[in-house]
Structure formats: structure tokens, C-alpha cells
């Protein structure tokens, strides 16, 4: 057995690093010990279980490895997650926010939603699965209160507009957003850099700052993550 060394991430609570020989991986402490979600490696260290976090499958991990400065997702955070899909990233967010946090996971594709419920939500008490189209913001009003973080990873042409509408309804005044910009879903024929710039401009025009812009290569092609918050009212 190769020696395995665990360390906390210097900046982000709930995130860990596992060093094994030459390899360094990101990891989170499992809220549902004994269960894997997508075949990730599990490490038992000092009586706790840690799940390896694959940046090629989870864009949040990719962003962290590409130099994310500030992570709005912390232990205890209340997160509205649009585009939960089968729950790969959701499971790690669930680990990070922990038992005192909540994730309202919205997903519209029936097949993915089924996986989300079966493989992730059943074992994790801090996830509320919502089968809805994120376009219809008010359909889940009765299930979701105000949240501190909005994480948006949906493949739609008007993804940024959808996120802004959700922010207006659900994001606290000092809340923050994380937006995954999939440039090919927005316009397949434009240069990704131009698409990303345009989305950032849209956010600024609508009263939100863009504090970080992170390209996710080599983990994801033509993707970027934007982070920001509501602009201060003058």
C-alpha cells in the first residue's frame, strides 16, 4: 500500500488534498460513508472517509485546480443548484456544506433526475431534489427559501438569463453565484472567448459583478466559470 497523506485545502473549508506518491488529488469528506456515486476512489484515513474529486467530471473541482480565489460554497452554505444532472458535483457540494447546509438540486432531464434521486439524494439528508425546469423560476418557490449561493450549470442558449432570474427570486442580497458558461451551448459557431465575454457583460448589465473568470481547460473544453455577487446599490 502506497503511503497516503491527507491535508486540508489552504483556502477552502470542506475541501481536502490527498497526496499519494507523485499524485495529488482533491477530495471531500464523505457525508454518506461507504457509498460511491460515480465510481470515485474512497480513502479511509484516521477513521474518516474521503472521496476523491475528479476535475474531469466535476467543473467545480476543475475551477479549484485552475486557481479559484474564493469559494462561496462552504460548510453550512445553503445552495440552489441548477442543472444537478446525475449528481456528480452535487455529491461533493453536499460533502462540503455538510449536515448544517442544504442543496436545492434542480434538474429537468428525467433519466438524470432518476440517478440523482437513487444514487445521491437517498443517502444524503442535505439535498432536496426538485424535478423542474429552471426557466420556470416560481414553480419551486414553495420548496426553496432564500439561499446564499446559486450554482448554475445548465446547457441552454439563454443560460445566463435563466440564472439571473433565479438570482432575483432566490439569492440573498449578499449572496454569490457560480456560473458555468458552456460556450458551445450558447453559440456553437462563435469563439468561446467572445461568448464568455458576452455572458460576463450580460451579468454586469443586470447588476451583478464578475469577480472571477476561470477557463476550465484542460478539464473541460470551451468552458469557463464566472463568480460574482450582486452589485452594491449606489
Amino acid at each position: 500500500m502506497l503511503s497516503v497523506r491527507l491535508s486540508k485545502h489552504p483556502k477552502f473549508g470542506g475541501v481536502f488534498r490527498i497526496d499519494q506518491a507523485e499524485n495529488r488529488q482533491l477530495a471531500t469528506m464523505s457525508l454518506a460513508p461507504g457509498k460511491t456515486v460515480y465510481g470515485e476512489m474512497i480513502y479511509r484515513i484516521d477513521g474518516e472517509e474521503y472521496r476523491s474529486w475528479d476535475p474531469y467530471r466535476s467543473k467545480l473541482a476543475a475551477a479549484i485546480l485552475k486557481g479559484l480565489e474564493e469559494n462561496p460554497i462552504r460548510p453550512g452554505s445553503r445552495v440552489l443548484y441548477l442543472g444537478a444532472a446525475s449528481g456528480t458535483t452535487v455529491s461533493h457540494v453536499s460533502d462540503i456544506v455538510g449536515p448544517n447546509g442544504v442543496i436545492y438540486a434542480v434538474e429537468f432531464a428525467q433519466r438524470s433526475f432518476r440517478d440523482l434521486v437513487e444514487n445521491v439524494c437517498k443517502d444524503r439528508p442535505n439535498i432536496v431534489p426538485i424535478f423542474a425546469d429552471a426557466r420556470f423560476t416560481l414553480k419551486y418557490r414553495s420548496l426553496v427559501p432564500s439561499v446564499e449561493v446559486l450554482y448554475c450549470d445548465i446547457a441552454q442558449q439563454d443560460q445566463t438569463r435563466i440564472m439571473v432570474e433565479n438570482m432575483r427570486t432566490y439569492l440573498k442580497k449578499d449572496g454569490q453565484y457560480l456560473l458555468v458558461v458552456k460556450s458551445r451551448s450558447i453559440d456553437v459557431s462563435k469563439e468561446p472567448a467572445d461568448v464568455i465575454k458576452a455572458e460576463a457583460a450580460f451579468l454586469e448589465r443586470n447588476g451583478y459583478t464578475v469577480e472571477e473568470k476561470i477557463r476550465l481547460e484542460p478539464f473541460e473544453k470551451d468552458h469557463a466559470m464566472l463568480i460574482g455577487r450582486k452589485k452594491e446599490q449606489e
Partner: protein
Amino acid sequence: MKAYLIESPVGLFLIDKTGKIVEKALFPRNPKDAALVFVEIRKGVLPAEYEDFTKRVASLDIERITVDNQAAADLAKRIGGLSKVELNESDPAINRYRTRLSGMLVRLQLIESKDDYEKLVRDVSLELAKTAIGEAATRRDLFAVQTVRTIEDLDKVLNLLAGRIREWYGLHFPELDRLVEKHDSYIRLVQNLGTRDNFTEQALIDQGIPADKSQRIAEAAQKSAGAELPESDLAWLKEVCSSVLQLYKLREKAEGYTDKVLAEVAPNMSALIGAVLSAKIISIVGGLEGVAKMPASTLQVLGAEKALFRTITTGARPPKHGVIFQFAPIHTSPRWLRGKIARAVAGKLAIAARMDAYGGENQGVKMKAALDAKINELKTRYPEPPARKPGQNRTYGPPRREERGGRDDRRRFGGGGRDRRRWSPSGSGGGTGGGGGPRRHDRRDRERRQMNRP
């Protein structure tokens, strides 16, 4: 008094301007039952057992009820009366109360703790999710989609295994491979006749092979250069053959099932292009309703996404047809007609899909007749390939890397058509980069026609 109506998985709450809960209707604590009630609430319907709530609200003197979503508005109308309901989607007061709701309920001792509230929300949500998944799955078109995907998988597997058996038996009788084109015929011969000394002319004719071919095969069997095939090895090979033949039968059954289900689910589409091809289209889109929403131009190229996006990003020549190519009138027609026929088929198909998804009228026979008429009209109008102006097909620049060794047309008739990054030619007769050249039917067409013989 002016009040706010808030709906939550725990119940309905009427809150006054001071933030006090003046009336409430509590839902059952059991998540399953609560979910059932909640589903009705989200539709704007108040279940009968809460009649009392309506009466109590009516007895209060309420000027106006404010809500923040349509379902609550419908509810409020039923409870309070039409004139008094105000819908304000980002009402700050309601926002505040929703966030504070769990705290308020704890203080009123309606729930034990905030954690309990969260747990209830989650459990109800889980129940709602299960119902949603169940409902979404009971659509018959999805079953047909799985079956046609099975057919596609079977085709791949059968092709693979047939190739394997040919190589395997080819150790004993290599000449047979070239003489019998159809896979299932080949395998049936191996299974029924065994070693090549049983491949007599009569035996072959009995197996259904036409006389002239039977003669050629029998001759080849006599002069074969292959190795001997011992009984036990033959027996094992026969076992494999019988399994593969069973898969062929399975594929036939799958087609039968598809025909049956699609006749019910999409009769118009099936009448036009057949059940299996209709199912393939539905499979690509994911559901019948999705197909109905698509314009004909999209249906025309569904399945040719690689070529389509290449056109969009590099300005290459667009694909004329996607899976729709599998429709016989398209792939058996000469090249210059395929695009036109594909367009006609796609047009009628879009209408058929809409009828199937939303209406249910079966105009199948009429539509097929109209389509056949149109195809015949195209065939008579364009019996010859279009004249090729000299230099019309040449690219403006060297062929791009992907296009070397690409599809047939490309290799033979030049590169990628209009390059939108430079100037486009003015009157080059439509500018799509031309159709077939003076070469009409070629070796491939001949091969294709040969393959359709047994």
C-alpha cells in the same frame, strides 16, 4: 385587512401585515400523504378536506390577498374570491416570511425544530420526485425507443459475429465467403449443411439458393483450398451459428414489436417512413413530443450532426440527409435527387409527427399517397443529373484535412463548397457546391444493387 398567502410542504398559511399567522391549513405529517396534497396545491386546487380553511378565511374581513406565484394565485381566488387577489412575483414581504416560516412555526409549536422543517421539506420533495419520475416514464414511445436502440445494437453485434463466423468457417471453405453475400444465408448454410462435401448443387437448391449460384458454390466446394474440419470442431461452430441465428430471429421479433407499438404511438409517421425508421428518429430526439416541436429542416438532418456542425463552424457543404437516408426512396435514388426527396420527406414527416404527438388523427394513407406523388413528380422533373458548369465544384482553397478520405462525393467531386470566410461567388446557380457530375451511377451503386439480391 391585507394578507399574504404562502404555500409550503407543511401547509397553507395566511399571514397579516404584522407577520402573524392568522389562519392555517396544515398538511399531513406523513411525507407520502403530504406530497399528494401538495401536488394538488401546486396545481392551484384545494383538496376537499380543507373546505374548512376556506370558510374560516371567508369569515375574516380581507381586502386583498397577495401571493408570489400563479398556483398560489389560483388557490387564493378559490378561497378569497376573484377581485381580491394580487400576484407579485418578487414580493419582498413574502420573501421575508418564507425565509422566516420555519422559525415562526417552531415558535407556534407547530413543528419541533427548524431541522424538522427541513427534513419535512426534503421528504416531501423526495416523494414528489418519485411521482414525477414515474409519470414521466409511462409513455409508450419510450419503450419503442429502447427497442429500436436494441435493434441498432443487434445490427452491430450481428455484423460483428457474422464476420467472425465467415473467417472461422473460411478456414475450411474460404471460397464460400465471396459467393454468399447475405450474412444470415451464409450462417444458415453452415449450420444446415456442415462440411463442404455436403455443399452439393441439389442440397444448395433445397436450401433456397438459386440454381446458377448453387452450381458455382458446389463447384467451388469441390475445388476448395481450405483445411479439413473435424466433427467436434464443426459441432462447436454450429453451436455458435445457432445462437447467432437466434439473434437474427430476435431482431425480427424486435421489428415486429416496433411495428406494433408505433402503429399505436405514431401511426402517421409510420405510414410515411415505416415504424423502425420513425422509432430511430424518436430515439435520436428522445421522445415523440420533441420530434413534433422540430422544424422539417432539422428532421431532415437528424443523425448527421457531425456533418451539420462542421458546416456551421467551417462553412463546409451541408449534409442532405441524416438517418432519413435509410428511407428506401432516398438511398435507392440517384444522387442528384436525394436532397430534394429528403426535403420533401422531412416536410411531410414534420406534419405527421405533430399529428401523432398532439392530435391522433390517422391520415397515414393519404399522406403516404401525397408523398409518393411528390417523389414521382421529382423523378420525372429531373431524370438527368444537372449540367455541371466547368469549375463549379472546385473549392476556393485546398481541401481541408478532414475532407481528405471523407465521404464519397467529397473525394470525387472536390472539396468543401462555399468558404464563407472569403468572398462567395455571385451567380453560381444556387451556390451549394453542385450535385453529381457527368458520372452518374457508379461502382458503389452497382455494388449496392447486387447486395439486395439473396
